[in-house]
């Protein structure tokens, strides 16, 4: 499948490259965090507290982005924070995607009572404000990586469900779906081979977007100290600490915000870029 879609003659769009490059950097940093990080992210050194980034007077070599109010190396903390951000992003987004897309596909393609039931559940689900819902869920499940992942998946499957349902619905009215029925194929097989094949680009785009959203939600949860244990560095946790020392050490707040912003933006742009490359008609 991928080979024909990568035929020459199509220029790679810039957003796909830029977004992909940033995500690759974050991914590599996250996977090889212990090798890449210049320091132990947890090691405190009160002699080195609130060191500024490397270009400012008073910076120390080796502490590229400075240190926080406990003397911990900010870059190392961000790198280890990327680990948690990406684990949550992948696990939660994939879980939400699998549940939401499956239900959306069934509702949109089969219509009738499966659609009525699924759509009603989605409506009810969406009546909850998402962030409050997440906080509530984590409060119920207890803090920890797993419960953050579950909370995000439980909240955000509806996003997949709604979009995929609408697309599957319009797909199921297409002539080639009717032709497959005439040919004698069963409903399930048609759903996979004719409908899913056409909604796949949207699923890919949504999946990437959802990874970005999961990163934000994780940051919010750790900002309010509801994510994983407060020892592990998380971007949201670093932001929360940085907020307290904004006047003495702005960098502790600004760098994690930049990392968060770039990552979320890259995920959504990467998804859109992939979608248009995947779509055989658009490309």
């Amino acid at each position, binding site marked *: 499948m991928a080979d*024909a879609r990568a035929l020459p003659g199509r220029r790679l769009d810039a957003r796909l490259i830029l977004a992909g490059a940033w995500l690759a950097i974050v991914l590599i940093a996250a996977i090889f965090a212990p090798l890449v990080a210049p320091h132990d992210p947890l090691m405190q050194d009160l002699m080195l507290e609130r060191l500024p980034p490397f270009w400012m007077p008073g910076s120390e070599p080796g502490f590229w982005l400075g240190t926080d109010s406990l003397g911990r190396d900010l870059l190392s903390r961000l790198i280890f924070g990327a680990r948690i951000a990406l684990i949550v992003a992948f696990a939660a987004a994939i879980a939400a995607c699998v549940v939401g897309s499956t239900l959306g596909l069934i509702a949109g393609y089969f219509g009738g009572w499966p659609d009525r039931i699924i759509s009603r559940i989605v409506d009810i689900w969406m009546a909850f404000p998402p962030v409050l819902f997440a906080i509530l869920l984590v409060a119920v499940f207890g803090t920890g990586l797993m419960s953050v992942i579950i909370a995000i998946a439980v909240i955000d499957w509806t996003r997949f469900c709604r979009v995929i349902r609408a697309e599957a619905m319009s797909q199921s009215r*297409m*002539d*080639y779906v*009717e*032709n*497959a*029925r*005439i*040919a*004698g*194929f*069963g409903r399930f*097989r048609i759903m996979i*081979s*004719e409908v899913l*094949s*056409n909604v*796949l*680009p949207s699923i890919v785009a949504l999946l990437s977007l959802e990874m970005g959203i999961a990163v934000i939600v994780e940051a919010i949860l750790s900002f309010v100290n509801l994510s994983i244990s407060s020892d592990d560095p998380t971007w949201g946790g670093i932001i929360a600490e940085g907020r307290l020392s904004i006047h003495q050490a702005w960098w502790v707040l600004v760098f994690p915000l930049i990392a968060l912003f770039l990552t979320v933006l890259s995920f959504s742009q990467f998804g859109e870029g992939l979608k248009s490359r995947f*779509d*055989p*008609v658009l490309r």
Partner: protein
Amino acid sequence: MSACLDISNLSARLPSGQRVLRSVSLTVQPGEVRALVGESGAGKSMIGKAVLGVLPPSVRIVEGSIHLEGADLGQLSAKERRRVIGAKAALIPQDPLTALNPSRRVGPQMTDRLIHILGWAADKADRRVRQLLDEVHIREPDRVMRSYPHELSGGMRQRVLIAAAFASEPRLIVADEPTTALDVTVQKQILRLIAQLQQEHGTAILFVTHDLGVVAKISQRVTVLYAGKVVEEADTPALFADPQHAYTRALMAATPKYTDPMASLMPVDDTVLAGLAAEIAVADHDWKPGGGTGRG
């Protein structure tokens, strides 16, 4: 019961109660081309869809039966019906643009049915499809089979669909205005191709069209449909020589002739339409609403 397709007394209606088919009877003998003509909205496609088991869910068959190769489709379970239709019938669709899945390659779309419905081995299906592509004069079968539909022209796609329809050796093909979406020069080629393959394979065709010129070229017998009702049925030469029904005559008068181009500008006569409306009112009166056998 030797007919390939035998539709008898078929009536269908919409939830609003409006009838879209009015006691339609129609047979297609093995190897014959039966034209089904009528103006837009007459219910031609509805008949095709009923035969192929893909009526819209809102359309209810309220009476009558459809026998395909001797099997009474109304008496079969949904699953058996799918299997019978899948094995015995095929469609050449109207719009080659939307009839192929845009995100799958053409080759697998053509072999799918042979392999998964008819149970052929993959290499046999592949050979078969290549043979048919050759018969529809596609010279680069490899390239075409590897292509996505949007990489092919409309005429090419229609050839692909014709090849796919004949590949499974169906007993009956429903061709629903297979040339209307194509441009005029391609139309003729496609028509000739269908006629040629039909003769070589001996396939019966229910050929839906609103073009009497096409009827004259391709069919042996004609059924004229108006507002879901059969108004005339005849051998093609007989119909053209001596049309019995006023509507048929009006339809012929409205068909462009090279000798008399102005004739094509003549609308169907009002008195003819009034007569038809009366006929249909009588038919609807005789027909007892809700009195159907209610098969689905």
